[in-house]
């Protein structure tokens, strides 16, 4: 029996995650715990509940109907509700009774066929733009059987496939995935294993080893580096990265620098994680602030973009 992960969204007409016009599949579940994560709703493999305060009409029906008594008014003014996420057992009764969709379920269980049907709807756009489908998340490697099955189906339909991943898994899994993947969008967060472990919870040995092996089997790889202030935006990190990348058996296509942004802050609040979010109120990084990294990498013959690739062609 195939283990079916939850999917938060199949987003169509995406132009930033692989070439051309693409559909992105966001799978829930990730082995890493990056404190700046832009998709916090995909970290946990479990179902989550969003609370959209702006849609709430303060009818109180969720409070009345919660069997666990996990929902209460945030303050005596009754302007918003508060979900006790510890008490909540995800029965989702509150979502059923909410008339305005202020409470929203995050994570649907979709069969392989359902996902493939939805993705195939935009096939004409993939063909004219050299686009395709991108598995993202979370991390597709967190649900290997399902991801492999999806990729197989897409390749059978002659659709270009990309996988956006942390690279943190057993090599055997990644190796099998590579058979059906036209392009990897592969994250390298930081070269120093200690810092990596301190911030993200795991060290980077497995990730870097896997990348070496992927390169050896001639996978197409773009490296993605989220540039996070105070974490990896130092010269030493990129010097180490250059050494590492240059030692790979086959060259990568390019490095995409993704300057830190804070647009996920609202999602943390909607998930009730606002107080845990370490980057609350931190300003967005300007494109200019990472230009020095781009210059440095390019000086070392590594093609580099800021903001990743948008559009058609590799």
């Amino acid at each position, binding site marked *: 029996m195939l283990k079916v992960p939850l999917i938060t969204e199949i*987003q*169509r*007409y995406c*132009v930033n995650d692989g070439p*051309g*016009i693409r559909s992105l599949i966001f799978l829930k579940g990730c082995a890493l715990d990056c404190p700046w994560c832009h998709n916090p709703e995909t970290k946990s493999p479990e179902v989550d509940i969003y609370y959209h305060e702006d849609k709430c*009409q303060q009818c109180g029906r969720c409070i009345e109907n919660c069997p666990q008594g996990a929902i209460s008014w945030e303050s005596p003014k009754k302007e918003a509700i508060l979900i006790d996420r510890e008490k909540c057992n995800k029965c989702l009764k509150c979502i059923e009774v909410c*008339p*305005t*969709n202020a409470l929203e379920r995050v994570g649907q269980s979709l069969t392989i066929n359902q996902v493939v049907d939805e993705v195939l*709807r*935009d096939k*004409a*756009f993939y*063909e*004219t*733009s*050299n*686009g395709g489908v991108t598995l993202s998340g979370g991390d597709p490697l967190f649900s290997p059987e399902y991801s492999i099955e999806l990729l197989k189906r897409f390749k059978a339909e002659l659709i270009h496939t990309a996988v956006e991943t942390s690279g943190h898994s057993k090599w055997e899994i990644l190796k099998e995935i590579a058979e059906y993947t036209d392009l990897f969008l592969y994250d390298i967060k930081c070269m120093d294993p200690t810092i990596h472990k301190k911030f993200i919870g795991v060290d980077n040995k497995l990730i870097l080893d896997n990348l070496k092996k992927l390169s050896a089997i001639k996978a197409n790889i773009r490296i993605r580096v989220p540039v996070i202030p105070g974490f990896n935006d130092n010269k030493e990190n990129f010097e180490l990265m250059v050494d590492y990348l240059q030692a790979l058996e086959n060259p990568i296509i390019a490095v995409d620098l993704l300057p830190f942004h804070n647009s996920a802050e609202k999602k943390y609040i909607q998930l009730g994680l606002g107080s845990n979010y370490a980057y609350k109120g931190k300003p967005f990084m300007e494109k200019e602030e990472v230009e020095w990294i781009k210059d440095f990498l390019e000086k070392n013959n590594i093609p580099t973009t800021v903001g990743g*690739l*948008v*559009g*058609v*062609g590799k």
Partner: protein
Amino acid sequence: MKGITEKDKQDELIKPMTERARKLKDTLWWKHTRGGEYVEKGVKAGIERARYMTQSFKETDGEEWVIRRAKALANVLDNITIFIKDHELLVGDHAEKPNLMPIYQESNYFLNIDLLNSPYCPDEKEEFREIAEWWKPHTLQAKAEKYISEEEKELINANTSFESPGYVTGYSSPIPAYETVLEDGLEGIIARIEKKLKEAQDEFLHQNPWNGPEAMTLLKKMDEWKAMIIADKAVMRWTKRYARLARYMAEEEKDSKRKEELLMMADICNHAPSKPCRGFRDAVQTHWFTYLVVQSLERYGSGMACKMDSMWYPYYKRSIEKKEQPMTREEMVELVVLHRLKVSEHGVIKSRLYREIHAGANDLFIITIGGVNPDGSTACTDLTNIILEAAATAMTTEPSLGLRWHENMPELTARYAHECIRRGLGFPSIKNDEVAINSLVEGFGGTGGQPVREARRWCLALCMSPGRSGRHGGQRTRWALSSYTAKLLELALSDGYDYSYTDMQLGPHTGDPTKFKTFDDLLQAYKVQYQYVHAALTRSRDLTRYLEAKFYQSPFLSSLDDECVERGLDGIEWEEYCIPWFNVIDDIVVADSLTAVKKLVFEEKKYTMEQLVKALRANWEGYEDMRLDFWNAPKWGNDDDYADEVTANLFRYHSLELKQHTNIFGSYNKPLPQHVALYWSLGPRIGATPNGRRHGEVLDDGGNSPYIGCDKKGPTAVLNSCSKIDYSLQKAVLLNQKLDHNAMNSDKGFALWYAYMKTWHRLGIDHVQFNVCDHEQLKDAQKHPEKYPDLIVRVAGYSARFVDLSRYAQDTIIARTEQELAG
């Protein structure tokens, strides 16, 4: 077409405006309207057209009406004040001063009354009052009212379930045969007509044996030919007045460069439009003079229908190859920019209704470019690119461009189009060439279809509607009228009674809606309301056409058409290639409403019809949960097969039901779902609707565009939904799309858009146009309008300057871009 060179890279395609164009643009009198009023102070009606036309009509009492029309036009052209502005290279106006507009006092007396009581009345108010009095019984409106009932008059005046007919509004939209004037000159045309007239006179006077049935038809023809000659000669005298004025100004001119220009203009105006055009300057001037007479002086005609690049091309070629009137490419771009500025200053006095419908604009000036030639090869040339370049250079909302997108569209032309769109112009609006050609070849019954070579000459008559262009057979007056379908659904849900706006029985009794047992019962009631309105519309349009042929002839327009000349026919009388349509307004509100009722009432049975009717009457007040259920029901535009099926079926019904009505020439109508600015102005007239919309809220913004806030799956899903409609049953269908400002302006912006367009074409969708707006910029423009005089947004069939729109209209545009961010 050569490939894209480095030099063609996007930012380098468009050069800044020339000094001359900048100065002219800064001093333009914009005629835009906002909230039903002209925006710029001092814009008003001029008396001269009305004065000289009336003077002539008083003198010609007793003569044939068509002769009177021609003589009246001649009197206007001989006496109207003319002027040439500083810096101009292209001359000619339809009123005595640049801030003024002529009056069409002969079309409807409502407009005359409106004018007398508005700030736009001519300074000579008493004179105009007398003119209006004199015309009242002679207006098309007064003549039509003899044939209709008081009841129908009330429905027309209510203007709530359908648009007032042409005999009330005087609205028209011809496709003039400019090609004959460009190729033969008016002298050539007159020579042809004189020959026909001479032959007919000889035939009539000397026929032996006498053949009555044949010979007696000659009388009417002779009158028509005489009228054509009077009109054409008057036009030549008028343009030569411009030549004399230019020569006179040259003599006075101190600046030697300007003196030279004025002498050149004198030469052009002396030549054009009397003789065949020599080069590009003659062609542009001839086109403009002809346009002014056909669509502003002889009578009012909306639009600017022509296949401009094909029509100008032979003269472009002679000038660029330096054979005649040598010009550089830069000079041509400037001249086209000057043409755009002429159109931008061109205005029309119109009723309050049309001032509302065309909010932010003055009139619907649409020029068609691109597509294929009669032999099937691409008609896109460097001139096509020049026309697009001039639009991106001038950054004026008018005239709008319609680009015929065809198989193997040249990439360079696509790039120029992308430049216009990414800069936020809102045009070119893009039409699927093959869909339009197939529709014209198939025909609409009656007079039948056209040979494919002829169909390939098509241009847009107005925003959306393809018609034939070229030397003969183009549309001569307006074919369309509009029905407001969301109101018709409301009537189907209220036994024909309009409780939300007029308090009148606007439609037939279709039964108590709470007794509807099935979805088909509801649909049946809707169809009866739909039929009732379209019978009335077909009748009123035929009546208009009948009266136009008797009292509103256009001898000048007719003289341009080879076939009208050949047959001695006024264009209005001729059945041409009859391809009529009705604008089906707010159809997506109907589609989403039907989808929600089908699902929630008849399938899931979550609500009863009784509850629904109650909630709608209460404008959803006290029924918020229920409203949200209806609002969250499946919606058109999300590639959702359930909603898309109901919608595609509705489009089909709309077409099949229209086939039951046959017009004066034996043709049937096809629906043309589109909205102009009616989606705002109708808001207050249409009560709560089952798609979850409240009374007063806006309607959908066009054709098959999803309702605002309801397309949640992005542009590919919208196109997939749209591909489920059978376009062969529709005259055309308008699609508004919003595209992300950042993506469109990125390095790969063109490549992405190009791929998107290729898919759109492959899916066989009829039309698409784009709003590419920066959300923050729009918000800032609301606060600081003075900073954004050139910020342009797409409204529906046309573009408008954002600052010219009412607050309400601005808010809906901003709401549309907010959706883009959320999606």
